[in-house]
């Protein structure tokens, strides 16, 4: 006798499949609309301009520097959030998360508010390092957003490693610091590299904060996502679309690299 599995309720997988396909089609159209609009020959023309690549390198180096600083803070902070239990843990984690959950434009407004205050006015007075409408402002905005993001990603990476290995290492007489460098970091290596790539891509995508805090100087602070806004305001649609193609390629290749390395980069 054939085991009968009911055929009722077939509409449900069919519905799920149809919705998925149509959503995918609309998102692909959204992403591809720039290419369709610009055409091949114009893409080649804009890609051969130096103005494009100057902006590209500015984006790359600023986001690399800010990624470096956020990793410096984010790896130990993520480890602390992942392993230690302390009172008001959820509250502390929520406050750390605030710069990424509120609108980045709001973060820009708040940064604009603190740069005239204590550490920043002191730094500009004693070291002549003005953080504001220059490339240091860009770095500060990127650092503010990515440090919190990085701590989140690192916490997720460390959460995936069982605590048991640390306990074994500690019971065999290794100091906590030695355990961290010899056991935890090598085990979390893939997760850390994958998160690093995502953090870099996030830093390269940050622009809303710059709009309120830094402003754009052509060739100095106009990193690519912001340059899109500037050129859109001046009506240069060719530049806008070709630069957004570069940004899309950067985001997609960063995520692909992350997946090849094998990171999950689930944050919560």
């Amino acid at each position, binding site marked *: 006798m054939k085991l009968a599995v009911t055929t009722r309720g077939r509409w*449900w997988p069919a519905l799920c499949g149809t919705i998925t396909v149509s959503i995918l089609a609309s998102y692909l159209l959204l992403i591809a609309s720039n290419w369709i609009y610009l055409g091949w020959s114009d893409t080649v023309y804009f890609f051969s301009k130096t103005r494009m690549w100057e902006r590209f390198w500015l984006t790359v180096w600023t986001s690399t520097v800010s990624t470096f600083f956020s990793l410096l803070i984010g790896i130990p902070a993520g480890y602390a959030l992942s392993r230690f239990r302390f009172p008001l843990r959820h509250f502390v984690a929520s406050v750390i998360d605030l710069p990424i959950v509120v609108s980045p434009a709001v973060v820009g407004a708040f940064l604009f508010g603190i740069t005239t205050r204590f550490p920043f006015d002191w730094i500009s007075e004693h070291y002549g390092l003005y953080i504001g409408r220059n490339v240091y402002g860009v770095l500060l905005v990127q650092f503010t957003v990515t440090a919190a993001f990085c701590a989140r990603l690192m916490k997720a990476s460390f959460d995936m490693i069982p605590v048991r290995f640390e306990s074994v290492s500690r019971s065999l007489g290794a100091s906590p610091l030695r355990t961290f460098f010899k056991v935890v970091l090598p085990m979390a290596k893939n997760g850390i590299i994958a998160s690093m790539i995502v953090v870099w891509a996030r830093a390269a995508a940050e622009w809303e904060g710059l709009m309120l805090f830094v402003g754009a100087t052509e060739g100095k602070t106009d990193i690519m996502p912001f340059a899109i*806004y500037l050129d859109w305001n001046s009506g240069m649609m060719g530049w806008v679309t070709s630069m957004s193609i570069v940004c899309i390629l950067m985001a997609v290749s960063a995520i692909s690299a992350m997946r090849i390395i094998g990171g999950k980069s689930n944050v919560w």
Partner: protein
Amino acid sequence: MSGNKANRKAFKALFYSFAGFLFLYSLYLFLSNLDQLFVTEAAVKTREITDVWGDDREIMNQFAGGFWKDPYFWKSLNLTVVTTLITTLIASIVGIPTAYALSRFRIKAKSIVEILFSSLIVMPGSVIGICLIIMFNYGPLWDLQNALGFRFAHSLFPGMVIASLVLSFALGLSAWKAAFDSVNPRFEQVARSLGSSRWRAFRTVTFPLAKSGIIAGIILAWTRAMAEFSAVLFFCGTFMELPSSRFSEFTKFIQMDQADWVSVAVWAQVEFGNIEYGFALAFVLVLIGGISVYIMHRIGAKGYIW
């Protein structure tokens, strides 16, 4: 042994200090700006000299630009909350089946789908905005709009919902997919073998098990929709200075005329020089974001953040 204990303490203190730095930085960033809410003498004088505000000058020179007396504040909040709720509703109606399909069905080139949705999270907002503008304002969709006689872009209802939906959907999808991934498919197979249909197996077995993750995804989608800035700025712009005649009777009736998306309003007010008004709006967004991220931590949600 005591050396070991001191060692452990020093280790903990070192790692706490990094987390503490981030905590204090964030706290300082948001709390130290509370004094921006007070109108400075310079701003009052400037407003008296320039005389741009006319009758509103008295309001603008009060605490935080007297935001609670200004209909623009309440209308903007009303507009944003209602629009984001509509967005979240659409995102969850469409997104939960999609997440279920991506989590359960064998789909070819699934990694490409995942790369697409993950890369949306690290894509600049301005790129999303430009893509929306080009998609809707050129080509066949533009012809369609001309034929039908309405506009997607620069409109309150479809425009703002579309602009906030793009990223809110992507974020919610990641959380919902993680929720369905965490439920063992075996339970569903058992239910199917006992004779329940596919829909019933989903409704009575998988859905209740994934419930907390689904709720977290809904909160995440709503928070992301509230935090949307660039897509709305590019696709819809501001409505504050449009004449009253541009808005329909219905829009006026539901108190959404001459109002802006809140985060766009923050930008617009700071650019106009109403720093304190902008910060008052910004603190509303910070409160909303803080409360919803706290709830997400308490639920212990899984998924992406942007």
